[in-house]
């Protein structure tokens, strides 16, 4: 049973040594170590949280992008559609306008042609009359160059008158 009786010397040494060890370690080891571990854990947690947030942000951005893409596509479709209708209407209008314009031009041209024809006919008549007068004059002059013939002619004329 000697083993169960504590020796005073060892009790004293143990008490002093252990308490000293505890206070020295508490001040110079445990405190900085636990603080450092805590800080590191805090940093890790924070980093993980940030990563999680970044991930969520990424997802949000991707969704937003998708949304934007969709919107852009819809807008493009709309624009294309509008452009198409616009084009159709322009083409139609142009066609229509061209038709009316063409018809108008044709009408104008017809009138012009008519006028020109009339003018040409009038001029032709004038020229024909003056030409025939000229020819008649020249024929007369030619025929009336000698007296005999003049006589004959007058005689003829007179004969005609008499007939009338």
């Amino acid at each position, binding site marked *: 049973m000697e083993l169960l009786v504590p020796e005073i*010397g060892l009790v*004293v040494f143990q008490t002093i040594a252990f308490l000293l060890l505890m206070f020295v370690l508490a001040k110079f080891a*445990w405190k900085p170590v636990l603080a450092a*571990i805590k800080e590191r854990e805090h940093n890790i947690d924070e980093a993980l949280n940030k990563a999680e947030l970044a991930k969520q942000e990424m997802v949000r951005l991707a969704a937003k992008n998708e949304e934007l893409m969709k919107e852009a596509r819809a807008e493009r479709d709309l624009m294309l559609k509008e452009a198409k209708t616009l084009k159709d209407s322009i083409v139609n209008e142009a066609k229509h306008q061209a038709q009316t314009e063409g018809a108008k031009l044709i009408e104008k041209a017809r009138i012009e042609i008519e006028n020109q024809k009339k003018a040409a006919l009038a001029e032709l008549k004038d020229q024909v009359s003056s030409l025939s007068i000229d020819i008649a004059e020249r024929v007369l002059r030619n025929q009336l160059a000698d007296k005999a013939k003049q006589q004959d002619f007058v005689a003829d004329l007179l004969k005609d008158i008499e007939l009338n």
Partner: protein
Amino acid sequence: MDCSHVFDFKVNRLTLVFTLFLALFFVTPLLYAQEDTSKATVTAHAEPEAEKKFNLGKFALHHIADSHSWHVIGDTFIGLPVILYTQGGLVMFNADEFHGDDEAKLVVERAGQRFVKLHEKIYYATATANAEGEYVEVDANHHAKNVRPLDFSVTKNVCTLLLSVVVMLLVFLNVANGYKKRKGKSPKGLQSWMEPLILFVRDDIARPNLGHKYERFMPYLLTVFFFIWFNNMLGLVPFLPGGANLTGNIAVTAVLSVITLIIVVTNGNKYYWKHIFTPDVPWWLYIVLVPVEIIGVFTKPIALAIRLFANITAGHILMLSLIGLIFVFNSVYVSVVSVPFALFIGAIELLVAFIQAFIFTMLSALFIGMAIEEHH
């Protein structure tokens, strides 16, 4: 984390070789020690043949007890300083002055006082020797009846204690330095050895038992955990810097558990004291319950002290007994059985070294936690 490499066959083989190598060291000093005893018996006493027989109990108890000298190897012992507080003041001398005597047969005179050493304890010597040449009065059980001076000697256990304090300071100041040098970075070297254990104490011992107030008690829990673990391990080393049975000494475990008791009592809140002195039972039951509760305050630390002491001492005795079997049967062939078995127990003791440190710290935390628990 991938740990598969730990079970690699090559590593296992290396470990085995290393353990066998250590076992060799473990057996050799014992062999020498045995030689000493037999030589001493033959030369000094010339006792009858029957008494020369190897006494396993004595052998084991001698090795787990404290000592005034430190066995190095063979016949070499280091004498440690003896410091006595006597009626005539402080007396100091080297234990070598007893010249290896441990049976009160050699008297050392200092400051007009005479001392003898019997079973590693120092007594005031009687004036004359008794029939067996011992300067002590003994009772029927051969226990000395002489008065003892207050013995503050630096014994083998005290040396181990101081050594472990130095080792712990070196290790943990180095670890703390690592945190300062690699601020916010991952641990390295010694630091990464110790960090899991520090986290183990914090997350598995302190936090579950102490709740949010755990930080206040961390210095004690960490110190006590590592102190017990380091010394348990040091006690398992069979040669010089180790070999002392510090955590298997009741004085050491008693001091540790008294510190736990002091922490419990000084931090106990009103709920703790109310539970002891005015528990929620009919008043006439107080006659029984209050004394039981008061006894409970003291039995907890006593159980703590005895648990650690008994576990470590038992481990040492078991190993010594297994090796001692060789000398009991006086045959080298017994070693074929007892050395592997001692090796096996040694491996278990490594585990026990950790488990006992854990249990002591765990129960300390539990008792403190019970004292500071808030009831809502």
